[in-house]
C-alpha cells in the first residue's frame, strides 16, 4: 500500500461512524411542505422570483442570484407557493424563505433531462451549468462552486483535490456516495478538471474508509492523471488548507490568500457528484445526502433528502429519538451548529443531523488554563489557542489580533483537547465579531 500522508497538528476524536456507515443511501420521504431559505450559501442572499399562489415544478428557479458570489435556489418539489416570508434557519437568524406545498406529483421542470453530448461541452458552458444549478460546496462551508471554478486571471491552477476525507466524526454521507456512485463522482471531477484546464487530480481519503479507497481507486485506475491518496486518520484533515498540506505539502498563506494562490482547487466528493448531475442532466441542486445519526437516534440512516425538508421529518424517518435528547446539531460534532428548534429546513450545507443525548451534551465546567500546551500542539494553524482564549475573555482585542486570530478556522481541535474544558472556539468567535465591529467603527470615523 502507498504511504499514508497527513498534516501537522490535529486531534483524534473517536469517529463513531459505525452507527450509519453500513446503511445504504435511501431516498427520504418527500414532505408535504418544504421551506427554501434564500440564503443557503456564503455570499449574497437570493431574490425570490415567485409569489404566493404560483405553481412551480421541481427544479424550477425560485431564488435568483444577482451577485457574483452567490448561488440561485430552485424548487425541490412541485406544488404551490404558500408563503414568501421570514422563516427559521439552521444558521443564525430567520431569513427570507419560500414555502412550497407539495402537489404530490413530484413533477420536474422540462429542462431537466439528460444531455447525451455533455462530454463535448466547452469549459465555459460547463461552468455556466454549474452556476445556474446553484451548486455550492456540500462539505458544509457552502461556498458557491462556480466562484471557486473561476479563478482570477493570472492564477495558475495545477491540481484539483477531491475531498473524500469527511473528517467530522459520525458523518458518513460522503463515504456512502463514494461507495455507491464512484463513477459519477469521478466524472464530476473530470468536468471540474476540464473547466480549470488541469490534468492532475488527487482524491484524498482517510484510512478509516478502506472500502471507499478501494471503490474510488477502481474507477480512478482507468483515468489518466487521477490518483487516490490514502491519508492517516486525523481531524481536521478535511479542512482545505490541511488537506492541501497533507497531499501536496503546500501551505496556503494567511488570509486573504486562498488555496488557488498555491495552485489548488479543492472540491468535496458530494459537490463533484452534484456537478456531474448538473452538467449531464441539467439538474439543479435540490437534493443532497444527509446522515441522520447519533446515540439518541433509534435508526441512524443516510438519506437522500430534498432541500427544505425539516429536521423533525427526517428524525421521524429514522425511528425517532430515544431517551432524553440533549442536543441537535447540524453538521458534525466538531464544527456543527446546535439547533434550538427542529422545524428548521435542510439546506445545501447540511451534511448531517446529529442528535446527542443529555449525558453526551452536558458541558464540563471550564477552568483556568493550566498551560499544558495540548491546544498548541493540536492547532493545525500554528496558533496559540490558549492565549487567544484568554485575550478574548479579557477583551484584549489588539493582543488577539497580533496573534492572528483571523487565521483561526474554528475547527475546534483546541477546545476538544483542552483538559481544563476551556471554550476557545466560542471565545475566538466572539473576539472576531468584536474586532470586526471595532474595525468598522474605526473606518466609519476616518
Amino acid at each position: 500500500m502507498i504511504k499514508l500522508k497527513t498534516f501537522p497538528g490535529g486531534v483524534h476524536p473517536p469517529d463513531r461512524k459505525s452507527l450509519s456507515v453500513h446503511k445504504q443511501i435511501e431516498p427520504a420521504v418527500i414532505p408535504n411542505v418544504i421551506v427554501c431559505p434564500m440564503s443557503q450559501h456564503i455570499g449574497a442572499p437570493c431574490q425570490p422570483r415567485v409569489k404566493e399562489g404560483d405553481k412551480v415544478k421541481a427544479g424550477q428557479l425560485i431564488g435568483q442570484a444577482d451577485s457574483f458570489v452567490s448561488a440561485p435556489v430552485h424548487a425541490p418539489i412541485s406544488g404551490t407557493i404558500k408563503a414568501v416570508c421570514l422563516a427559521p434557519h439552521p444558521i443564525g437568524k430567520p431569513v427570507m424563505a419560500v414555502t412550497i406545498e407539495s402537489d404530490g406529483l413530484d413533477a420536474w421542470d422540462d429542462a431537466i433531462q439528460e444531455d447525451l453530448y455533455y462530454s463535448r461541452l466547452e469549459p465555459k458552458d460547463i461552468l455556466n451549468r454549474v452556476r445556474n444549478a446553484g451548486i455550492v460546496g456540500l462539505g458544509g462551508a457552502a461556498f458557491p462552486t462556480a466562484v471557486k471554478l473561476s479563478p482570477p486571471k493570472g492564477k495558475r491552477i495545477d491540481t484539483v483535490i477531491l475531498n473524500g476525507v469527511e473528517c467530522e466524526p459520525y458523518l458518513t454521507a460522503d463515504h456512502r456516495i463514494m461507495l455507491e456512485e464512484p463513477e459519477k463522482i469521478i466524472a464530476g471531477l473530470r468536468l471540474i478538471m476540464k473547466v480549470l484546464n488541469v490534468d492532475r487530480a488527487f482524491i484524498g481519503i482517510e484510512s478509516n474508509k478502506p472500502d471507499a479507497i478501494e471503490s474510488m481507486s477502481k474507477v480512478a485506475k482507468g483515468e489518466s492523471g487521477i490518483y487516490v491518496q490514502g491519508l492517516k486518520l486525523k481531524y481536521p484533515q478535511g479542512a482545505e488548507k490541511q488537506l492541501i498540506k497533507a497531499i501536496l505539502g503546500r501551505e496556503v498563506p494567511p488570509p486573504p490568500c486562498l488555496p488557488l494562490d498555491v495552485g489548488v482547487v479543492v472540491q468535496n466528493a458530494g459537490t463533484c457528484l452534484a456537478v456531474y448531475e448538473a452538467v449531464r442532466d441539467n439538474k439543479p441542486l435540490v437534493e443532497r445526502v444527509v446522515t441522520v445519526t447519533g446515540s439518541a437516534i433509534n435508526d441512524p440512516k443516510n438519506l437522500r433528502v430534498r432541500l427544505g425538508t425539516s429536521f423533525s421529518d427526517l428524525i421521524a424517518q429514522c425511528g425517532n429519538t430515544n431517551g432524553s435528547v440533549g442536543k441537535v446539531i447540524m453538521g458534525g460534532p466538531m464544527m456543527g451548529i446546535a439547533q434550538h428548534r427542529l422545524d428548521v429546513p435542510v439546506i445545501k450545507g447540511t451534511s448531517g443531523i446529529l442528535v446527542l443525548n443529555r449525558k453526551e451534551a452536558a458541558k464540563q465546567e471550564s477552568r483556568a488554563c493550566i498551560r499544558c500546551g495540548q491546544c498548541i500542539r493540536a492547532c493545525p494553524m500554528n496558533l496559540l489557542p490558549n492565549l487567544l482564549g484568554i485575550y478574548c475573555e479579557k477583551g484584549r482585542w489588539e493582543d488577539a489580533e497580533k496573534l492572528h486570530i483571523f487565521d483561526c478556522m474554528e475547527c475546534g481541535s483546541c477546545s476538544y483537547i483542552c483538559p481544563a474544558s476551556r471554550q476557545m472556539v466560542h471565545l475566538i468567535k466572539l473576539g472576531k465579531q468584536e474586532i470586526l465591529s471595532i474595525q468598522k467603527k474605526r473606518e466609519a470615523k476616518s
Partner: protein
Amino acid sequence: MNEEQESTGELILSCGPHISTITNIPKVMYGVILALIPATFTGIYLFGWSALKVVVISMLVAVLTEGVIQWILGRQMSMWDGSAALTGLLLALNLPPRSPWWMVLVGAVFAIIIGKQIYGGLGHNPFNPALVARVVLVVSWPVQMTRWIAPLDGVSTATPLGILKSDGIAKLGGIRLFDLFIGKTGGCIGEVSALALLIGFLFLLWKGYVTWHIPVAYMGTVCVFTGVFWLVNPQRYANPAFHLLAGGLVLGACFMATDYVTSPITVKGKIIFGIGCGIITGVIRILGSYPEGVSFSILLMNAAAPLIDQYTRPKRYGRLKKHA
C-alpha cells in the same frame, strides 16, 4: 453565531465542538501522582515510617489548605482535583526522611498559599509551588533540611553530592553508580532512586501527559556541562553519570521542571528551558557553594518562562510561501 451556553426548553445550545476528550485536570493530576508511586514507595521502603509520615502529612495539609482557602475566598472549589495533592506529594518527596512534622506542615501550607493561591490558584502561579516551599524551608531550617539518613539502617549520613562538595571526589570512592541508580544512598525521600522515577516518567510519556523535551534537554545539558569538567580534570570532578544519578536531578527534571503551569508552552521553549536549568544546575554543583542546585535552577527558569514563551511563538501558518 454567538449562542451562549443555555438551555431553551429541551435542547442545549452551545458553540462547537460538541464533544471533548475524556482527559481532564483531575485525570492529569492523579496520573502524575500515580507516576510518582514507585518513587514514593521506594522512599518509604528505604527510609521507613518517618518517610511515610512526611508524605501523608504533606499531602493532607496541602489538600486541606487548598480547600480552606478556596472556601474563604469564594473561589471555584477544586481541592479534590489532585493538583493540591500533587503539590503536597512533590514537596514531601523533596524533603529529608526525618523532617519534623511541623516543618512539613509549614511547608505544605506555604506551598499552597504563597506558592499558588496568592496568584489566583492553579494555572496562575509563576513558580512551582512545591519548590517555593522547599527553598523557604531550606533557608529557614537549614539544619533540619540537611539531616540525612542512610537507607535501610537509618544511621545519619551525608548525600553523595554533599560528600563531593565538602570532602572532594576522593571520598566518593565507596559509592557505586548502581546504588545511585536504584536508590541506595542518602537523600530526599523521593529523589534517591532514579530507576523508580524513570519508570514513573515513562508512564507519563506513554499517557501523553508530558513530553520528553524538558527532561532530555535538562539532563543532557547537565551531562555535557559536567562532562566537560570531568574530561579536563577527572581527578577533581565527578563524572557525568554520577551527576545524572545523584541528588534530585531526575526527580526535578522529570517531575518538577515539567510542571505545565510554570514551564514554557512550546516545544522550542521547553528545550531552551531545559538547557537553562541544566546550565544553572551545573554551575551551582560545580562552582557554587551549595552541593545541589536543582530547585534553584528550576525556580530561576520558572521566572524566565514567560520571556521564553514570548520568543518561541510558533511560526505563522503559510508564512513561508512555497509554491511548486
